[in-house]
């Protein structure tokens, strides 16, 4: 499947039309979605009509920018006027959005063609996409495995060629986890950078909106469209000579699948060969991050769901309901302690970045887990799937730093592996420029 960048070039060279490429995505959806369950809603007729309009506009000389006519998908946690935002939950039965989320308005202005709304872990409250009122989404690389989550249907839609790119949300890793599990680029920007207006919240402290794409260049284009900057031109890659990157070792590389570790070390070695200066560094309170995350995200989520937990508890999937109930038990004093801990961790990550252009670590410690697994074997020891999935991504939700996953090859059994780059807060574009330069060395 072509990238958005390639699509744009071919569209403007009159080699393809938006209608043709949209039709190709719709045919892929028809062929593969019954197996992968990536979409909750397909806007076939509307997408065809919008693609034809974009073609007519271009023929008349109106070019909306890099996303003009590009067929993309959107996580069904994001409001589109006139459609249900199901959040993959029976709790939302009967919902109809009365306006577009801010990011949808920006995508429409940018000329994107939204082909459908994608499956997710119920209310984005999980990392595997198994708990969904619409059934689990499946990984295109191996449909007995999870595509990751919570934006699992989104990742499956792009990895299977059902859309050129997709929009996800990330509260503890829900963009980067499925990107890594499905061999895609996933960008979580700086906290607060992209509007979450019109997006069903999980934790207002940690929620982010961002793209999953087939390349770093596409991530730049879609990220800027989400910001409302839909005429952004492609940046120049950052020259790698003289770049300083720090590997996070202690805690972050303590528990890794053997193949993930191998692909990560190979990527770091290739970057070093390309002229990158590689240091090692520690985050002092790394071991405390999952505890801090838990004591903030659970009460945040419980507060949003309090009324429906009481009025319609049986409409939640059992696992999601129980995690929400946990959040109701956390005391205010412990929430405040965790917020204080968050500030400490944020300063420690800032300090690690003060002398470096980026931090580097694996995105997921394990490849995509089998659907239904609660534990996986890592280096001969059983580890809880949920803890493994969040371990390396949630630190940067706690810190609010921009972080992105880039494909870094596959395991011996052919499952994708991702490497994560983390940049300074409020410097997402600098991270994207660095990632653009690193991409050919990290991937194989």
């Amino acid at each position: 499947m072509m990238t958005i960048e390639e699509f744009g070039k071919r569209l403007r060279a009159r080699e393809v039309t938006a209608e043709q490429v949209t039709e190709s995505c719709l045919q892929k959806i028809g062929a593969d979605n019954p197996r992968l369950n990536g979409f909750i809603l397909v806007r076939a007729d509307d997408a065809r009509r919008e693609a034809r309009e974009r073609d007519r506009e271009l023929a008349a000389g109106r070019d909306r920018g890099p996303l003009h006519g590009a067929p993309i998908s959107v996580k069904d946690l994001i409001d589109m006027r006139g459609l249900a935002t199901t959040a993959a939950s029976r709790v939302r039965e009967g919902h109809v959005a009365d306006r577009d989320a801010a990011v949808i308005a920006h995508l429409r202005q940018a000329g994107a063609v939204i082909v459908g709304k994608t499956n997710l872990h119920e209310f984005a409250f999980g990392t595997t996409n198994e708990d969904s009122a619409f059934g689990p989404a499946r990984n295109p690389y191996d449909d007995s495995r999870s595509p990751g989550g919570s934006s699992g249907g989104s990742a499956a839609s792009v990895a299977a060629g059902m859309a050129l790119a997709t929009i996800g949300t990330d509260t503890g890793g829900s963009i980067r986890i499925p990107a890594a599990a499905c061999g895609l680029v996933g960008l979580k920007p700086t906290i607060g950078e992209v509007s979450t207006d019109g997006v069903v919240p999980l934790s207002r402290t940690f929620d982010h909106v961002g793209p999953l794409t087939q390349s770093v260049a596409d991530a730049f284009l879609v990220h800027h469209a989400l910001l409302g900057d839909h005429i952004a031109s492609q940046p120049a890659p950052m020259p790698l000579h003289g770049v300083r990157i720090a590997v996070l070792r202690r805690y972050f590389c303590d528990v890794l699948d053997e193949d993930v570790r191998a692909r990560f070390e190979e990527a770091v070695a290739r970057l070093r060969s390309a002229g990158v200066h590689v240091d090692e560094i520690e985050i002092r309170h790394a071991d405390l991050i999952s505890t801090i995350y838990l004591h903030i995200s659970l009460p945040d989520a419980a507060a949003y769901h309090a009324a429906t937990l009481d009025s319609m508890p049986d409409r939640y999937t059992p696992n999601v309901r129980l995690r929400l109930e946990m959040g109701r038990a956390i005391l205010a004093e412990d929430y405040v302690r965790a917020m204080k801990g968050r500030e400490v961790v944020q300063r420690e990550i800032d300090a690690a970045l003060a002398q470096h252009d980026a931090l580097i670590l694996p995105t997921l410690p394990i490849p995509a887990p089998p659907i239904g697994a609660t534990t996986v074997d890592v280096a001969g020891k059983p580890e809880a799937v949920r803890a493994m999935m969040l371990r390396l991504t949630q630190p940067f939700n706690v810190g609010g730093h921009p972080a992105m996953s880039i494909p870094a090859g596959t395991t011996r059994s052919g499952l994708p592996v991702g490497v994560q780059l983390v940049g300074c807060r409020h410097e997402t574009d600098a991270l994207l420029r660095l990632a653009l330069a690193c991409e050919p060395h990290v991937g194989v």
Partner: protein
Amino acid sequence: MTIDAWLKAAMADAEARKLPELKPLLETLAKATALLRQADVNDDAKR
């Protein structure tokens, strides 16, 4: 409120609300909360 007192109250509440599946999760949460309270990032009125 001590962790022990909190856990006892939370377990009783789970029992009263007919949510016995919540109990093992609360026990796990209690361990995490103990870690959070012991961490050196906390404020201390004596310092």
